[in-house]
């Protein structure tokens, strides 16, 4: 029996993860080859959620396409329209009124808060801290309530329009926003306690999914994942747009907070928690300095469509979504009232590049953490993977998840907690 096991461990086994996998909110496939506990070869296959949405957009008019882009992803349901309106405004030469710019910034930051808290919950779940998952998601309700009050719905806000926004932020909303800011200031301190100073969380995420600065640059990693590796990249800082141009946004990097960079999952947590605080500051600045004025540059949609039909132009819009930069390219050729070319590059498109190198040499129990680390969003990109054990049996999600949970238990015992 023992001999049997040894001979088997020296063999290589293939572990497929996905296309449907509970660690993933969306479909992608990762084929990992394992030797004992170590992953020795990985292959990432994506494309399972490729819906040809860009083609649908090229058949519709610009307003329809804008709302189609909102449906690319539920969690980033502001990021895609944001990039799309930025690109369209560049192509058409429309300048949104200042008040609209501030409102857009506020909504985008609210979305960042809810997305980051969601990520914290997902990572906690992956390492077996389910109570923390429920606790973080409870915290997330507050920002969703505020978004619901401002925009009418919890997700899919239907807020943006080429040349402005559709709804105003009223006095009552500002009160709710201020209340929310106080709530999250307190919650962020608690989150720092729970995540950053917890010995088990530290043991489980330190040195896992370690991404070096050099590799991050080479693989075009963007967003919080790149910032966790110590790169100062942030579209809000590098090419500011809308209200970010008035605010001195600086990329949040671990070296400014802790003095050192590891680029591991712990640093990613750190970056995301501090970014929540940064977002609160941005929202506070925006509501204190909100200019008065119109909401839409061209208030009449029919007039807007006519303008588009008469204009030729192309534009690239970049927005710092919660997961990284989302880029839309739009081209209008003056014959249709919609884009003739529309291309979307979502943050996960580039961030998934790092799964291969990161999974190499990782333990099987760490796979969920590595996968969750970049906060993949496959509807945006269109996604990782399954694992077979030593007998060639396919491990399902629950087994992998259990392995991950067991590792946490082991560490708990080792630490004597």
């Amino acid at each position, binding site marked *: 029996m023992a001999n049997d096991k040894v001979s088997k461990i020296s063999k290589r086994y293939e572990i497929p993860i996905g296309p449907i996998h509970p660690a993933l909110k969306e479909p992608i496939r990762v084929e990992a080859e394992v030797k004992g506990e170590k992953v020795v070869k990985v292959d990432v296959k994506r494309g399972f959620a490729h819906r040809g949405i860009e083609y649908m957009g090229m058949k519709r008019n610009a307003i329809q396409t804008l709302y189609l882009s909102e*449906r690319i992803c539920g969690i980033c349901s502001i990021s895609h329209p944001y990039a799309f309106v930025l690109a369209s405004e560049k192509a058409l030469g429309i300048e949104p009124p200042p008040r609209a710019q501030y409102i857009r910034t506020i909504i985008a930051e609210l979305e960042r808060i809810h997305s980051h808290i969601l990520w914290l919950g997902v990572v906690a779940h992956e390492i077996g801290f389910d109570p923390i998952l429920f606790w973080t998601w409870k915290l997330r309700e507050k920002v969703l309530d505020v978004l*619901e009050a401002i925009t009418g*719905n919890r997700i899919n806000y239907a807020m943006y329009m080429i040349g402005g926004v559709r709804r105003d932020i009223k006095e009552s909303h500002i009160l709710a926003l201020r209340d929310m800011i106080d709530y999250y200031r307190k919650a962020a301190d608690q989150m720092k306690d729970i995540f950053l100073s917890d010995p088990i969380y530290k043991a489980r995420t330190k040195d896992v999914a370690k991404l070096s600065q050099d590799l991050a640059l080479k693989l075009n990693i963007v967003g919080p994942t790149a910032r966790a590796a110590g790169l100062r990249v942030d579209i809000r800082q590098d090419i500011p747009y809308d209200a970010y141009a008035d605010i001195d946004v600086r990329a949040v990097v671990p070296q400014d907070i802790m003095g050192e960079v590891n680029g591991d999952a712990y640093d990613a947590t750190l970056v995301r928690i501090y970014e929540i605080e940064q977002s609160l500051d941005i929202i506070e600045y925006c509501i204190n300095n909100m200019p008065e004025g119109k909401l839409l540059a061209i208030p009449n949609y029919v007039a807007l469509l006519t303008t588009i039909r008469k204009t030729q132009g192309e534009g690239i819009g970049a927005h710092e979504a919660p997961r990284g930069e989302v880029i839309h390219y739009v081209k209008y050729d003056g014959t249709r009232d919609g884009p003739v070319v529309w291309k979307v590059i979502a943050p996960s498109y580039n961030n998934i590049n790092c799964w291969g190198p990161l999974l190499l040499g990782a333990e099987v129990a760490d796979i969920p953490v590595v996968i969750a680390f970049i906060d993949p969003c496959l509807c945006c990109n269109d996604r990782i993977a399954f694992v077979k054990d030593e007998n060639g049996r396919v491990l399902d999600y629950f087994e992998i998840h259990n392995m991950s949970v067991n590792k946490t238990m082991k560490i708990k015992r080792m630490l*004597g907690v």
Partner: protein
Amino acid sequence: MPTKAMFLMIRQLLQRPFTNPFPVKYAPKNVTKTIEKVKLGQMSINNPIPVPDGFRGKLKYDPERCIGCRLCITVCPANAMEWIPEVRKIRHYVTRCMFCGLCVDVCPGKKLPGETAPVKALSMSKEFLLADYDKYSDNLIVEPTSKEQSLNNQEPSSDQK
């Protein structure tokens, strides 16, 4: 070694549930009876929490005020509007709708005699419980039921189930 997370968990255990309460604590044996009891005032249930002001629910359509400009069809991202040429009105499929509210924004509406400003033909209601087994059920199609229409839209006799 107790960690901060443990204290938090224990505190959580002692708190009231954070989520909105269900109408009743346990699933009733007989739902119809429970509803009747509530109607008679013999029982109280937890009322649903109100939706916010700007909520976008099922579309309401007032064919009287529709001028047949077809703007809503132009902007609708989901193609949830259908043009009925005979009566020059629209038919709205709720199942296709994605509740963006663009059609409401764009609708010009009509000024009835005696009014100072036009009133839109479309508006968003707060109705959101729209689940149904049949995607073409009457509840999910909003259409004009004027006299001209009633011929094409003869309801099946009511004894048919």
